[in-house]
């Protein structure tokens, strides 16, 4: 029997965000995968060249709705490096607190999505309820649930009070109990084992060759974590373990993330118990001298790397962002080969993809569309049929 080419996406009920997978099938077995991205490309890199550094603080945060703080942290670290500005120690601790709260809520969110993808919606309801505890903490300190607007160049904009500390520590006690429960679920629950064990295999040598990052790499036994390898913020002071497993499958990616939740709770406790006294913000100039800087952080999904080139004005000359999902894509295509079609959603979900961040780079339309460019639903349908026909698929 011949192969069947199955286009999934850009719009498809199984996908949370628009991307296109063209899957070549031999019966139920996946032979080849081609991934097409760019459907939510927003032109942020180009846009950043037209904004001042202060405006960019808030733009860069909107690259992603989940790991927004990792991006804004990278941005401020780059600018501060070119300025040669050492920020107050208390501000570093508060920034680290936000980096870890973000990892907590992101991993809880992912655990729910993974449960949902394998039809285990009870887990989804449980984890998203617990995620709200973290969201409440973020809102309590920063005033925002998603884009926290915490950073300024030279420090942070809001302080952590005694009451905040008390509430954070109380919540950590609760979340630690929950994390123990999820650890148990991940290792023993039959639904998860049946769907995740030996699924989406990524061998360590393949992960290294294709530069997988974050929990995806760590579940293949590669001990890579920017927090340890190139310590930033206050990670040098903070004791924590890098979690790895050697099962190379989706189950390993579940276990790594659950155990990372436990580590994050430990880090947050340490930060709250050792929070230094002092200022939280240093004054920074508006104009940034000519220079270049590279900053990378361990975002919840893996290495997030930013490059800044400044030219002595109030606006950056070039700003480049590479998010972890893009780095994990070649490895994902490898994981999908030789699996079954029914496992595709969970394997893709297991890298914790974030297409919104990945696609960011440029301006497709500049907001001044000509009236003639609006097309009707019928035209769109015909365009879609033509698009696929040109590529040899039958509608």
């Amino acid at each position: 029997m011949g192969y069947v080419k199955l286009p999934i996406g850009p719009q498809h009920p199984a996908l949370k965000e628009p991307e296109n997978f063209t899957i070549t099938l031999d019966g139920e077995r996946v032979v080849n995968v081609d991934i097409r991205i760019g459907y939510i490309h927003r032109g942020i890199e180009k846009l950043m060249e037209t904004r001042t550094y202060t405006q960019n603080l808030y733009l860069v945060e909107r690259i992603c709705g989940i790991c927004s703080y990792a991006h804004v942290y990278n941005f401020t670290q780059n600018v501060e490096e070119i300025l040669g500005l050492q920020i107050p120690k208390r501000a570093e601790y508060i920034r680290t607190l936000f980096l870890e709260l973000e990892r907590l809520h992101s991993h809880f969110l992912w655990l729910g999505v993974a449960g949902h993808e394998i039809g285990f919606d009870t887990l989804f309801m449980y984890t998203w309820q617990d995620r709200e505890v973290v969201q409440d903490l973020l809102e309590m300190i920063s005033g925002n649930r998603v884009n926290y607007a915490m950073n300024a160049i030279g420090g942070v904009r809001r302080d952590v009070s005694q009451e905040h500390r008390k509430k954070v520590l109380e919540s950590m006690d609760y979340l630690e109990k929950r994390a123990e429960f999820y650890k148990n679920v991940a290792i023993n629950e039959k639904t998860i084992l049946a769907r995740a064990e030996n699924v989406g295999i990524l061998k360590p040598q393949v992960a290294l060759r294709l530069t997988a990052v974050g929990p995806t790499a760590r579940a293949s036994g590669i001990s890579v974590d920017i927090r340890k390898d190139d310590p930033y913020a206050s990670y040098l002071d903070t004791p924590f373990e890098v979690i790895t497993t050697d099962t190379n499958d989706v189950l390993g990616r579940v276990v790594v993330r659950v155990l990372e939740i436990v580590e994050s709770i430990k880090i947050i406790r340490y930060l709250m118990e050792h929070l230094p006294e002092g200022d939280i913000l240093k004054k920074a100039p508006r104009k940034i001298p000519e220079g270049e800087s590279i900053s990378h952080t361990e975002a919840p999904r893996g290495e997030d790397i930013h490059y800044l080139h400044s030219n002595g004005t109030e606006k950056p000359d070039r700003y480049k962002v590479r998010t972890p999902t893009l780095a994990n894509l070649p490895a994902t295509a490898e994981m999908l080969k030789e699996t079954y079609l029914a496992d595709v959603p969970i394997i893709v979900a297991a890298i914790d993809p974030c297409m919104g961040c990945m696609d960011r780079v440029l301006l497709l339309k500049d907001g001044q569309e000509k009236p003639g460019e609006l097309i009707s639903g019928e035209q769109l349908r015909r365009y879609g049929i033509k698009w696929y026909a040109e590529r040899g698929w039958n509608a």
Partner: protein
Amino acid sequence: MTTPEEHILEVLKGLPVLMTRSHRLFLSIPREDLIKTMNILSSELAIQHLSTITARDKGNDLELLYHFMLQGVVITIKTTCPKNDPTIDSIVTIFPSAILYEREIHDILGIVPRGHPDLRRLVLPDEWVGGYPLRKDWKPPAEQEAEE
């Protein structure tokens, strides 16, 4: 015990490596030496982690920055190509993860990686004809039309 930086500097002895701060190394090379340098990184330093490729418009030239990581140290290889001949040797055969990053710089800055196996668009739509948006002289299509 030698630090990762010392190890890298030792292997790359004789090359103009610049250390801007701990964990950050830069090396500028002419574009003819790109493959030779990549082979040194791959075989003698056993680097596998290519973080990304940045490209930027410098006026008459386009600059490329290949960011590698070895034990937390970011090693950046810099090279340039002139705008009237925006080509560069593809490094996909040495570092397979470059495949998407080379497609991206081809898309947004019009740099052609010679020998790349699959130069389809990555972030822009397939039918895009509006030029290379990250070049400094680029204008959005509506403005381009208004001028004509």
